[in-house]
């Protein structure tokens, strides 16, 4: 007789086929048994993908702010807000960052290299009969470079435009589509109240992450139009009038937003503290906020780490529970198949053969559960990003890891039932009813 070694590939294949037959005999039970693993693996992969997607979006947004930047914003002080709610009379509210602040920062804090001041007005922008509500940002020529927001078409305004207070503007891609649906916006003109601006450039669309449609991205981002800072100061002064029903409200703000660039990344946090100190000394009210993108990024990374640890623990617990479920069913199966074990032993099966048979069955069960879980876990994020418009990212290692671990769970929780099966006395096993 032609003998092959007891653990050859062919033998393994036959053992696998045998296992499939045994599992198929109790297919409903097999399915129910692996549900624990299926849901464990599936929920972990899906949650990981959704978490990864959310964190990616957050990180992209933070990166767009620039990792070497510190962003200062004027905010209406909370007390002032209260007053304006109660008082129906008109009055002037003055708050926020001033040009004096800017000069002080530049002269006293050494690490700061470039400063991008910005004024923001909310206005309606027209092109004949088409219009868009947008934020008009008065700023400086180096804004695109500082904020990682490149110009897609045409150019940004130059130093010369600033000095001449030129009536030029650069508009966002989303706005360009809306105001100039036919042909290019560059070279065209837009109107804000009584003033006309020549469009010299179009910014790249922001927040356009892969996997999201263009339409989605356009819906969500606010329209922005950039004009030279001097032009803004000349045209709009420092006083903003907001009309509301029954009252008009006048706000006086010099600068709405200032971006500082710090020479080295390591200095960002220290410089931000120094800036905060400086501003607090000169402002009586809390009428500004400081955003440090790199700190946000670090916080985001830490959050993600914690999220992953929590997820890992959930995965471990669910796989443990799933594994125990499998072990339980395999022990029942061993008892139920005592006679089969006795027959196989009588027909020449060694203890090792019985161990292999039951171990292969358990591993197949849990690996099938893992595979099913991976399939569901990959499908769910896909459905979620399709239906809810959420970004999801499936990292390539998560399905592989999940599948491997579920196979391992099969080995670990299969060993005991398999050894129990193999250690039966053949005579006793044959007499078992």
């Amino acid at each position, binding site marked *: 007789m032609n003998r092959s070694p007891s653990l050859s590939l062919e033998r393994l294949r036959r053992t696998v086929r045998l296992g499939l*037959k045994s599992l198929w005999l109790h297919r409903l039970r097999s399915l129910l048994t692996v549900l624990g693993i299926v849901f464990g693996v599936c929920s972990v992969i899906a949650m990981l993908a959704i978490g990864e997607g959310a964190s990616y979006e957050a990180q992209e947004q933070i990166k767009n702010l620039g990792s070497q930047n510190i962003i200062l914003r004027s905010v209406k002080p909370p007390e002032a807000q209260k007053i304006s709610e109660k008082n129906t009379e008109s009055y002037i509210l003055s708050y926020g960052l001033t040009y004096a602040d800017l000069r002080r920062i530049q002269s006293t804090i050494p690490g700061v290299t470039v400063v991008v001041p910005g004024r923001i007005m909310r206005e309606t922008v027209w092109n004949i009969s088409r219009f868009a509500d947008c934020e008009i940002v008065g700023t400086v020529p180096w804004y695109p470079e500082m904020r990682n927001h490149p110009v897609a078409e045409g150019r940004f305004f130059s130093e010369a435009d600033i000095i001449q207070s030129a009536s030029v503007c650069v508009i966002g891609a989303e706005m360009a589509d809306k105001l100039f649906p036919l042909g290019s916006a560059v070279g065209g003109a837009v109107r804000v109240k009584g003033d006309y601006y020549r469009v010299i450039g179009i910014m790249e669309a922001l927040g356009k992450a892969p996997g999201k449609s263009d339409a989605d991205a356009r819906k969500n981002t606010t329209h922005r139009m950039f004009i030279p800072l001097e032009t803004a100061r000349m045209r709009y002064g420092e006083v903003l009038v907001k009309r509301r029903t029954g009252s008009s409200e006048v706000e006086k703000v010099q600068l709405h937003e200032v971006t500082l660039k710090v020479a080295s990344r390591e200095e960002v946090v220290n410089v931000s503290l120094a800036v905060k100190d400086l501003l607090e000394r000169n402002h009586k009210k809390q009428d500004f906020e400081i955003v440090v993108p790199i700190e946000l990024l670090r916080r985001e990374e830490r959050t993600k780490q914690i999220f992953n640890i929590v997820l890992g623990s959930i995965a471990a617990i669910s796989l443990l529970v799933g594994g125990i479920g499998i072990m339980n069913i395999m022990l029942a199966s061993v008892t139920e198949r005592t006679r089969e074990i006795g027959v196989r032993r009588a*027909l*020449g099966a060694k203890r090792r053969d019985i161990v292999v048979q039951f171990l292969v069955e358990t591993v197949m069960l849990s690996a099938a559960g893992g595979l099913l879980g991976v399939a569901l876990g990959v499908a769910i994020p896909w459905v979620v990003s399709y239906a809810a418009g959420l970004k999801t990212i499936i990292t390539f290692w998560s399905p592989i890891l999940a599948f491997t671990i579920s196979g391992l769970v099969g080995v670990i929780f299969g060993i005991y039932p398999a050894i129990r099966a193999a250690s039966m006395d*053949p005579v006793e096993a044959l007499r078992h009813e």
Partner: protein
Amino acid sequence: MAPASIVRLDDVHKTYQMGAVVVEALRGVSLEILAGEYISIMGPSGCGKSTLLNLLGCLDRPTIGRYLLGTEDVSHMDDDALSAIRGARLGFIFQSYHLIQQLSVVENIEIPLYYQGCSEAEGRARATELANRVGLGHRLEHKPFELSGGQQQRVAIARALVNDPLVILADEPTGNLDSKSGAEILELFDDLHTQGKTLILVTHDDEVSRRTHRAIRLRDGLVETDVRK
């Protein structure tokens, strides 16, 4: 040339410890079986027939005494070695057939060859040949529950023959069958005997015993009579 001795028991004892009580199932059995013999073992219930058959089948080891199978002393072999001997040299037939439910007829017949490390194609060919020999060539892919008791026992016989064993051991092979199917199974045993196989049948049925050429009668764990006809 006289037929070779293939089984030899020397003063074999088998005792079971049941808590404080010691049950002596066999109390000194000596036996020699020659190649080609057709033997029945009879005796009242509990006299040790199954115990003796399990020892002969290397499913168990004697407590005291020596057992030679062929030329090998198997009384002190370890579990793996006994498994190998069962797979290579013995054939088992049980009262309630003991087929594996999730496997087809031909797959059931193949089992001993599988544990012998025989290739799949070779095993399949041999199993098909034996299924034909017991008259089940047209039922190869059927599952055991689709067969009658007599047919199932014939599958079990084919399975016992597939490794071309030295001895075939059967514990009450007709016990679960009606007289007609029982008779068919006994015909099959007669044929096997004519082909030169060595058969040992444990039975309660005098009719079965009458067909065999040597009748061993046990009582209380001892051989009472041993008659060659």
